[in-house]
């Protein structure tokens, strides 16, 4: 059974002139896959990731996560899934300012059922895994862009989720830092995580095993990462 399956998903943003962001998206991701969603700006790839990440809901169509129709889930159940099954890495890091690396990484644990006495240990393990043990008590403003993104990855992993969503994770980074972040995502994939990566950079997308190309809100191509067509 597919871990992620969408059937005819559509997303229309309201307003005086409704905008169709996604149309008829049929998309399947199996457990343990590393998939890149590529496309130019405005192609709908981020909207798709937000729906897959349960941050937004589709206007039409169905989204099955691990076989469960997500449209039937309550807000609390969706929050629990976001906490325990999904991990997010954002382009703009989204770390809490004036809050230490340790506290940032612990944040998802506050909404989990893990006992609080284990929080520090769990967070420290992830901080160590991204190589930031010496920065544990630093605040985001004292870190480089690459370090901030690694904190965000540690935070995404702290509840040991099955799926990692990375939305342009290298978008705000120099190439060296970007490489470290992509190496980390590759390692996670090797450790058995399902990784879904959004990017407009074909070179970054090639770190995955499979790619889909979005254009004008639809999936227009799907195939091997080495065959990704010209994006723009």
């Amino acid at each position, binding site marked *: 059974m597919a871990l992620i399956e969408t059937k005819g998903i559509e997303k229309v943003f309201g307003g005086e002139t409704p905008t169709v962001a996604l149309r008829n998206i049929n998309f399947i991701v199996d457990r343990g896959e590393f998939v890149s969603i590529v496309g130019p700006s405005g192609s709908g790839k981020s909207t798709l990731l*937000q729906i897959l*990440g349960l*941050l*937004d809901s589709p206007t039409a169509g169905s989204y099955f996560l691990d076989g469960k129709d997500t449209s039937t889930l309550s*807000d*609390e159940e969706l*929050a*629990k899934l*976001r*906490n*325990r099954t999904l991990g*997010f890495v*954002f382009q703009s890091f*989204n770390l*809490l300012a*004036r*809050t230490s690396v340790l506290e940032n990484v*612990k*944040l*998802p644990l*506050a*909404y*989990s059922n893990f*006992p*609080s006495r284990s929080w520090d240990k769990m967070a420290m393990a992830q901080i160590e895994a991204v190589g930031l043990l010496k920065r544990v008590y630093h605040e985001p403003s004292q870190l480089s862009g690459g370090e901030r993104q690694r904190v965000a990855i540690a*935070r995404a992993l702290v*509840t040991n989720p099955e799926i990692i969503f990375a939305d342009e994770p290298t978008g705000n980074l120099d190439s060296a830092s970007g490489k470290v972040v992509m190496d980390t995502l590759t390692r996670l994939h090797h450790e058995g995580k399902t990784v879904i990566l959004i990017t407009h950079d074909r070179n970054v997308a090639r770190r995955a095993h499979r790619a889909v190309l979005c254009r004008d809100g639809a999936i227009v191509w799907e195939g091997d990462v080495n065959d990704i067509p010209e994006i723009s």
Partner: protein
Amino acid sequence: MSSFFYTARSASRAVGANRVRSGLTVLGIVIGVTSIILIVSIGEGAQSLILGQIQGLGAETIVIRPGRKPSGPTDMAQTLFADSIKQREVDALKRKENVPDYVSSAPLLMVSDSVTYGSNIEHPTIYGWSAEFMVSMIKAKIRVGTIFDEEDIKQEAAVAVLGSQISDDLFAGDDPIGKSIRIGTKNFRVVAVLQGGGGGLLNTDKMVVIPYSTALTYLSSGKHYNEVMLKVSSPEAVARSVEDIKATLRELHSITDPAKDDFYVETQQAAIDQIGTILSVLTAFLSAVVAISLVVGGIGVMNVMLVSVTERTKEIGLRKALGATNSDILTQFLLEAVLLTMVGGAIGIVLGVLFGYGASIALSQNLNVDWAFAFPWRAALIGLGVSGGVGIVFGIYPARQASQKSPIEALRYE
């Protein structure tokens, strides 16, 4: 539960992150709670002082005054000039067949005159009274000399007991005992001086006590007393003795309709109840005024919380993306509001207690009374509870606004 503590810690960090703003936000609450504590602590101090002084007169003391019971300041004059209590009434009340629980009594007569010694003139409060009754009742201490006794009263002796300040003012360091002072047209020999600082409700420092018989004969235009203080055997005997006294005086004055009584009787308990009620009403009224400042403070908190929710929209989105439920966000922002107002309340309690303590010292020194300061526990708990309540009432709307934000809308917010 662990996540609740984490949320509480996050809330305290958020409040602490903007100290100046938080401080200014809770100023209204601080002022409100400070005022509550101050009002209640001064109110309770006044109550315990007044009640203590009234109780000091003894629960078994009954006061009989001429005229109707005054229901307002304008009635006071008729009480002063009413002449229904004379020696005949005093003697009747002393008889055991009339008032079986009678122990002792003393009439009291106020003399409005000046006191002169040499070229020094003073205007003290002059009481025609029994010095022994006065000393036992208000527990006055004698600095020097011997107070006059029943024999002096019987003889209408021209003797006087002076309050400490009057003695100092008149004699300026000289030994007053045996010296002659003039009250009105009559000379009196000073037999004793009271110690300073006593007396409570009666300012004994500025009073002169002479035998009531002497005052009645030589210094009073009428032949009536202003009041009679009567002691009965026990506090339990007070109620029936009041009825005995009323019956005795009505019979003496041939009054059949109690509505036409030309005297009235007061007990210490009635005075205690009355003053307790007045002070409670006053405290409640002032507290209601203070509540307005708490409402204003609450509106300030709500305003700042709404600003904070808008400023932290992205953080709300992030928390939701990481698994926070609507109720987690609601709890966090509500805790922030409650923490803010309760910190304000706690500061208010500390300031209120400090000001209350300062006020008790100032009042003790200026009024020359023993104004006790007691930590107003009840008011402090109420203050803390009310400030927490203000946080809930005025924090719930911003917290709901925060909790109902869609995660993706919030994450996209710039």
